[in-house]
């Protein structure tokens, strides 16, 4: 149920989580330039309100599936910054033992399924989770994050068609940040209000803003409630923006001039501060929150840096499960 007026505590917690993701990503970017993080590294800076609003609106047992820009999504789900940073560093205490890396992080305890690097290929998995919810009538629902780029993939359309046909409790959460890597929305799709993609399968859909965490929370709660009620899945298009390039190697020269500065005027932390002001929360209180988070992230960095490398002994441990029912 969307709550139009979240409490002071709720807002402060959201602020803390959003700032945690941002600070974490800034430190991850630094570690990348230090070559402590290798490979691909897709930062979530700018989109923090989406992951935090989503997680607040779901049950802890609802399955969440992410694409390749997942650091913030898995953190909002409750996985510790230490475990995530250690994974990025390829270290043994990483959430996937250093086997997964930036794009492949999952935690059963947090019902977070990962972490998939084939754009759009993960979307049917979430529909499968919702299929299980309906099959077992367990009252659960699932949510899948993907971007505007993925909304061109066949897997996305097939997943929507199946989910709607069988009225599965799945929320398709489209984070439209206006760029598929470097290709702007106008250059990749004949329609730019992507929620309309659901019309072709008869699925309920709407758009909402992705900068105000309370707005995201409210809309995801409504979407999840709709899905859970047996009325079918929802395509929720969340309009957001990433401040950094597609990955660490992308200077994002394709942006229009002034575009980034314009978007930053609606920064999720600023909007949250606006919500907090009437509750009597001022800059001094927020500075305390940020200071505590800075320490947590610094601790995660130091933990990951000092941690043992991924264990060569487990090289063959995850080829096959090997068990039977």
């Amino acid at each position, binding site marked *: 149920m969307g709550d139009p007026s979240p409490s002071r505590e709720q807002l402060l917690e959201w602020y803390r989580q959003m700032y945690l993701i941002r600070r974490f990503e800034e430190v991850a970017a630094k570690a990348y330039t230090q070559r402590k993080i290798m490979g691909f590294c897709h930062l979530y800076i700018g989109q923090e309100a989406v992951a935090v609003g989503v997680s607040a609106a779901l049950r802890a047992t609802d*399955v969440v*599936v992410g694409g390749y820009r997942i650091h913030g999504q898995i953190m909002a789900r409750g996985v510790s910054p230490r475990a995530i940073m250690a994974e990025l560093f390829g270290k043994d205490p990483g*959430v*996937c*033992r250093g*086997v*997964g890396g930036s794009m*492949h992080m*999952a*935690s*059963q305890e947090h019902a977070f*399924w*990962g*972490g*998939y*690097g*084939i754009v759009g*290929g*993960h*979307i*049917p*998995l*979430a*529909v*499968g*989770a919702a*299929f*299980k*919810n309906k*099959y077992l009538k367990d009252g659960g629902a699932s949510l899948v994050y993907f971007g505007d780029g993925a909304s061109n993939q*066949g*897997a996305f*359309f*097939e*997943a929507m*068609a*199946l989910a709607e*046909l069988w009225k599965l409790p799945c929320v398709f959460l489209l984070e439209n940040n206006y760029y598929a890597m470097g290709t702007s929305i106008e250059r990749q799709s004949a329609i730019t209000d992507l929620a309309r993609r659901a019309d072709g399968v008869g699925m309920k859909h709407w758009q909402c803003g992705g900068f105000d965490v309370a707005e995201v929370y409210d809309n995801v709660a409504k979407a999840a409630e709709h899905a859970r009620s047996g009325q079918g899945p929802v395509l929720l298009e969340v309009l957001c923006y990433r401040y950094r390039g597609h990955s660490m190697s992308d200077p994002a020269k394709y942006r229009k001039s002034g575009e980034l500065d314009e978007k930053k005027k609606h920064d999720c932390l600023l909007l949250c501060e606006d919500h907090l002001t009437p509750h009597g929360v001022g800059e001094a209180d927020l500075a305390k929150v940020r200071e505590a988070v800075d320490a947590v992230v610094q601790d995660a960095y130091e933990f990951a840096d000092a941690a043992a490398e991924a264990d060569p002994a487990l090289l063959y*441990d*995850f*080829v*096959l*499960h*090997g*068990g*039977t*029912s």
Partner: protein
Amino acid sequence: MALPIAAAAPRTSLLQTREALRRAMSEEMRRDPTVFLMGEEVAYYDGAYKVSQGMLHEFGPERVIDTPIAENGFSGLAIGAAMAGLRPIVEFMTWNFSLVAFDQIINNAAKIYQMTAGAYHVPIVFRGPNGAAEALGSQHSMAFESIYAHFPGLKVVSVGTPKDAYGLLKSAIRDNDPVMFMESEMLYGMKGEVPDEEFLIPIGKADLKRDGTDCTLVTWNKQIHTCLAAAEQLEKEGISCQVLDLRTIRPLDEQALFDAVCKTHRMVVVQEGYTFAGVGAEIAARVTEACFDQLDAPILRITNKDLNQPYNPTLEKMVLPSVDRVKDAVKLVCSRGKGA
């Protein structure tokens, strides 16, 4: 009527392959409510090849599920359902259509256990007919064992008798890893004795379908029957062949291959599918690496000719392995090293 005095032999029934497969699925669905069947035309149509005939009636539409023609979508959905704790059986109307779902099978089913460092596994069976049938043309005639056996994280089973189909499908359904289970249109109507009492055949174990001393024919799926026919004819010409049915391509029963070559010192692999980088090449490499000193002749491969399948039945037969091609290969390897 007098009762039988001697201990009765295990009771068997003569089943078609499709009936054996159906029995395996139905028993497993009775045993485990998380097992369900999904695919194109599996429910109301009773299956494109009638493998699932009657299952909708017994299990209902929640567990025997017709899908739209969306292999990529429903394969991915089923993989997700498996991650969530169900045990899907996905029927491909033919394995040729699995290529539409290739990304789901390779990038998800085969890798999720590894990418999640063991947090999630994927107990799923993909099954359906594989290889050439009769005059189905270029896009409905491929054999997929070598394609899927290439990838760590998958198991590949390919069966050629009703008994093996039954026992291995039950094992596949109970397996916690993704199993690619390959059948044949040409064998669905073939009958064979299947014990009435429930049994499982372990994945990864080859089966000697015929004993012999001069040459080992390594094969699987419907080429078993080509090999058995060739072996019978060769016996009359004084050459004794054994026929080793791999049944599982991956994990490969290397020990059975090594034992066979230590016995006959000559080996011919008979497979459908293309020659290049095929399963036969893998077998030849592994046996040569491990048993070079045991070989009296190079290992030969009888495969599809290295081209795409033509429609015309005469041309099609020229492409596929045949009794004559197998016999020629056996005679060739047996002509080498004699009297050394």
